[in-house]
Each structure stands twice: as structure tokens, then as C-alpha cells.
């Protein structure tokens, strides 16, 4: 039977060329494997949201913890049942602000210099050097903060003012870490601005600085803003520098010369020892992780939206 139908089929085919697509199982299998690879990243995101959400929920269901209390009190001491989130958030913001005070102006200035001022030969030397800065592991920056920046700050401001662990040192070094990130993204945005705009400005008699600051930079503003937001997101999530140099122990303070633990620093210290499952410490790092995840996700989405919505499109 089967043979007969096959024969029929072949004969039929020979009589009229069949242009319909034949099913190719190999191709289909490969395509579904590739689709699975592409879809895998969705699982990662879902995994993050599910696992962090689940354990964070357990954390907030614990009798010692209440959301209202953790948003309104300023003491984070797990062993006494105090879970005020502000000391951790406050020091995270402090290191971030200090880092951005360094990274934003320097990063944009470096980008303007490389894209508008530097000769190609100089640019080809300087750019790889800055890329090296971006490729150094963050733990090395942590070492740098503790053994170079902190002694330097203590030398300048006095040993009784600056503690061995402080947020200023961590923030400053974090600024150096984020500088190349902002400068390379800004430079990309600046070099996307068409030549004709610059030439028109020069034609009107503008100086180089006027072209750079009043024509090119505004034209690339969306790209620069995106770079800054990505930089902030990176600073908030940065871990090893603060874990090494910013101090151990949550501390609600506005002085940059005093040790204070950030969200990431706290997670690292708590999980450094052997953490037993389902303890309050274990669940608390998931709650903090979830907070961190949503902050950085929001910043990244804002940055992408800024680029899409406010980009000046030139022909």
C-alpha cells in the first residue's frame, strides 16, 4: 500500500512541477532550537522577577517586618528586628551622587574633547587608554579606593575627620569607573551629529567651543542624557567598590567621610558568610535585590525612551 501511494506520488510530481513547500524537518527542528535560545532570555527575566518576588514576599510576611515601618524608620538592624530601609538607600544615593559629580562633567568633557578637538592621531591613542579603564574589574577599583583614595582623603581633610571606611572615597573611585562609560556613549552621540551642522556654525564665524557647546552638544542631547542615566544605573548597582571601601554596617548619615553601607554592600556582606535558607537575612537580600532590580530597570527603560523619543533626526 505504502509503496503504491509513494509511486503514485512520484508520478504525480513528475507530471506537474509541485511548487508547494516541502516540510523539511531538520530545518524546523533547528529553527525551534534557535527560537528557544532567543526566548531563553525571557526566562531569565521571569526567573529574576519570580524568585526575587517570592522571597521578598516571604520577607514582608515575617512578623518582624512591616512595609510601612521599613519605609518610615531609619534603622536597619536585622538582629533587633529593625528594617528601616533608609540608611541603605541613603548611602547608595550618596555614593551615586558623588560618583556622578565626577563622572558627568569629566565624561562629557572627555567626549567633547575626543570627538570635536582631538586630532585623529591623538584620538587613536587616547581612546584605547580609556577603554582599558573601562575593562578593569571593579574589585581592582575597590582596592584602589581603599589603599589610595582613602589615605589621600585622610591626608587632605585630616585623619580625625575622615574615617578609614567612607562613602566619599568609594564614590570618587566609582566616578572614575563610570567616566569611560559616559564618555564613550556621549562620544557616539556626538559623532552622530552631521558635519553640515558644524560647518554651518563655522560659516557663521563661531569659535570651536561655540560649535561644540552650543550646536553639537544640544543636537546630541538625547544621547548624552541616555549616557548619564545609564551611568546612574551603573553606579547604583555597583557593588565591589562600596563593599571594600564604603564600610560595613548600615549607618544613616549625610557625612561623606563616615562609613555607611549601601544596598549592594549589605547584600555582599550578609551573603559572604554561610547563609542559612529561609532565615530573615536570606529573605532580606531578595527584598533588597528586588528593589535594586526595579530601580535599575526603570532607569534603563527611561534611558531607552529618552533616546527614542527625543532624538533629533537628521537626513
Amino acid at each position, binding site marked *: 500500500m505504502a509503496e503504491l501511494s509513494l509511486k503514485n506520488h512520484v508520478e504525480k510530481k513528475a507530471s506537474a512541477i509541485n511548487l508547494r513547500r516541502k516540510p523539511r524537518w531538520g*530545518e524546523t527542528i533547528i529553527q525551534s532550537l534557535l527560537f528557544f*535560545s532567543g*526566548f531563553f532570555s*525571557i526566562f531569565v527575566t521571569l526567573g529574576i522577577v519570580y524568585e526575587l518576588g517570592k522571597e521578598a514576599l516571604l520577607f514582608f510576611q515575617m512578623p518582624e517586618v512591616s512595609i510601612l515601618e521599613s519605609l518610615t524608620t531609619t534603622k536597619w538592624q536585622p538582629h533587633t528586628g529593625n528594617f528601616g530601609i533608609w540608611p541603605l538607600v541613603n548611602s547608595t544615593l550618596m555614593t551615586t551622587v558623588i560618583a556622578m559629580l565626577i563622572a558627568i562633567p569629566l565624561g562629557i568633557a*572627555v567626549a567633547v*574633547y575626543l570627538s570635536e578637538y582631538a586630532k585623529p592621531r591623538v584620538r587613536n591613542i587616547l581612546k584605547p587608554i580609556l577603554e582599558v579603564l573601562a575593562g578593569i574589574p571593579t*574589585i581592582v577599583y575597590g582596592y584602589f579606593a581603599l589603599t589610595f583614595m582613602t589615605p589621600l582623603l585622610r591626608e587632605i581633610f585630616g585623619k580625625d575627620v575622615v574615617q578609614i571606611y567612607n562613602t566619599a572615597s568609594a564614590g570618587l573611585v566609582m566616578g572614575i569607573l563610570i567616566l569611560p562609560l559616559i564618555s564613550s556613549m556621549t562620544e557616539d552621540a556626538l559623532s552622530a551629529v552631521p558635519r553640515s551642522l558644524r560647518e554651518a556654525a563655522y560659516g557663521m564665524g563661531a569659535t570651536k567651543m561655540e560649535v561644540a557647546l552650543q550646536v553639537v552638544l544640544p543636537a546630541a542631547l538625547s544621547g548624552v542624557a541616555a549616557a548619564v542615566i545609564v551611568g546612574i544605573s551603573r553606579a547604583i*548597582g555597583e557593588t565591589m567598590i562600596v563593599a571594600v571601601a564604603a564600610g560595613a554596617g548600615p549607618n544613616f548619615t549625610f557625612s561623606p567621610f563616615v562609613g555607611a553601607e549601601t544596598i549592594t554592600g549589605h547584600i555582599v556582606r550578609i551573603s559572604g558568610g554561610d547563609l542559612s535558607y529561609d532565615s530573615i537575612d536570606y529573605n532580606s537580600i531578595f527584598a533588597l535585590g528586588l528593589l535594586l532590580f526595579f530601580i*535599575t530597570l526603570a532607569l534603563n527603560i527611561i534611558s531607552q525612551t529618552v533616546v527614542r523619543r527625543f532624538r533629533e533626526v537628521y537626513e
Partner: protein
Amino acid sequence: MKEKMVVQGFADNVDARNRKAMIWHVLFQASTIVGIIALIALMLNIINGAFGYVAYEARVDPDTLAVDGTSIEDQSKEQLVSLLQATLSRGAYNTLDKAKSFADRSREEVYQLVVERIVKPQVVQVWNLWQSLTQADAIRATVAQDHPEAELEFVSWLNADFVRRPQTSESLTAGVRTAILGSLWTILFTILLAFPIGVGAAIYLEEYASDNWLNRIIQTNINNLAGVPSIIYGILGLAIFVRTLEPLTSGEVFGLVDPSTANGRTVLSAGLTLGLLVLPIIIINAQEAIRAVPRSLRNASFGVGATKWQTVWSHVLPTALPGILTGTILAVSRAIGETAPLVVVGASTAISFDPNSPFSKFTTLPIQIYQWTSRPQDEFRSLAAAAILVLLVLLLSLNASAILIRNRFSRRM
């Protein structure tokens, strides 16, 4: 402003504007120089820490251990073993013998043990390279006065022994072999997970995916994942690989470990965690490489009747391969330097034996640096500096190989 310019004439204003332009030019240049100075300071600071004088005191004077006038440095292995047997308690000796029998140990290893267990040199003080070069006389005077028993020596903390020796708690005999091997084992599983899935995803998105909502979500999601802080991946790895998949990641399902002592904090968990971390980076880099393959190549292949996969496999991928490999190497060097996720996943710090299977406990180079940096004693800072140099050399050679691959293959195209 504008009116004033017209009234006063064009030329009056030009000087002021030029001066302003000059000032900004200098400012921009200075910012760039600040960046470079930061890099130089970082490097010098590490080198400064990795070399210098160290003063140490021996718990037992090595001269008293000499037999018939031969100092322990020249004694044979048998003499050293009997010395250990005579000095150490029976329990301690048996533990050592059980860890690795003395018959199997080389003379060098036994000598190491004698130094570690009997002579026990203790660091009194260390000086960094700058101090050692500029105040050598003062250092010698201080040591002679404060620690007459101590021996002063100029050491390079980074040396061949440092790379070869396993980790110990004694600063003078500590090494990074355990950590280097741990890093390599971890990276192996990172690549095994992230490379196939990453390249597969990139092929799907560039060659197969049509522009619909699902594929747009996948693309946006990958871009967002690339911006998630690394420590979040550590927490994810702790929940999924270490805890939920513990039977698998501890080797329990393969019958290698006793279920009661099974622990998911293994090389495998760490590697997979880092694999998730670098996956978006590999996908984005591979996408760029695939996108750079000219359309005409695909059309020519379709023109002679090749199927989609035949086209991708024999034309697109070979052309894009150098780009994909370069991107992967860069992602791997990111993974090698990662510390935070591994601390959360639970790298052990006090292990002195080499990892030898996917289910071994492990420590990695950055973790070792973190541990040494966080210790208050100066000698551990010096060890950290030496370990940083090892890490940087490792990363540098990886990046150099990426550049080599790019140059070599792009010439052929």
C-alpha cells in the same frame, strides 16, 4: 548681548570669545588628562603594593633545626619528613599524611610544610615599593632597633611560587593556584552555557525573527538584561542553581556526593550564574557581527538553492565568526573579573585544595583579592596587589588574543 555685539562692532568681541574658547579647550583637555592620570595612579598603586621590604620573625630559628651542620634548606626529603614526624603531634602528622601521603609529596612540598608548620615565619611589618626605595636606611634602622630578631628582605610578592602555591592562611606562603584553577573551571561552564545559547539567540534574532511584538519584546528584554547589576544575577544563581537545583549542582543525582552533605555552592553553580550574566553581552555582540555580513552573500547562497539553515551555517556564520569570537572573549573577560555574584553564590574562601570536578567547592581570583583586601593587615594588601597583577595579566592576554583573532581572520575575508 546680540545688540551689543552689533553696536560695538564685530572685532571687539572676537578676542573675548577666543579667550573663552581657549579656556574651554584647556578644560576639555584637562578632563581627558585627569582620566589618564587616574589610570596611571591605579597601576602605580598596585605595583607599589606588590613589591617592597618585609620584616619577618621565625617562630623557630631555622638554624636550630640543622642536623650535622646541614641547614634545612639542604636536607634531603627523608630528613625533612622525619623532622616533621618528630616535631608535629601524631594527629597533625597523620592528617597531613592522609591529605596527601608523604611518599607522593616532592621534596619541595615537604620543605614548604616544614617552613609552614615548624619554622612559622610571621610578618612583623611590610613596606610598599615607594617607601622601600626612598627610605631603605630608615627601614633598616627601625627593624634593627624594634625587632632585632627579625629578618628584613626585599620581596616581590608576585613571583613564580606565588602563582604555583595553593592558598594558605599564612601570608608568606600563600599562593593563588587554587584561585586561578577555580576561575578557569568556572569560566568553562560559563562558556558552555552562554556561547551556544547566545549565538543561537543572535542567529534567531538576526536571520529568522520577523518584526512582530514577541520578537521586539525579546530584543528589548535582552537590552534590559545587559543593564541589570551583576549582584542580581548572584541572587538569582543562589535561588535557582544553589538552592532549587541543589541535587544537580552538588552532583547528588550522579551519586557523587552523600545527600546529607550535598551543597550546591559549587563550581558548576558559579559557572552557570556567570553564564546568565554574560549571555546578553554575547547575544548583542554576536548580533552585531552577524548584521555586518553583507546581504549579497545570503542572496547568492539562496540563489543556488540553499535552504535558510544551509545559508546560515556555511556562509553567514563563517563570515561572522571572528566578530562572534571577539565578542565572546570580551564577555568572558568580564566574567573572569566578576566578584559580587560569586560572593553571593557562595565561593568558599578557605580552601587549599584544587578544584577537580564541576562539583568542587571553589574560590576564584577576584574573590581571593576581595578577601585579602578586606583583611586589616598590610601584608594581605600586598598579596592582594600581587593577585591583582596576576588577574590583569590574565585579562590582558585574553584581550590580546581577541585582537589577534580579529586581525588574523579579517585579513582572509
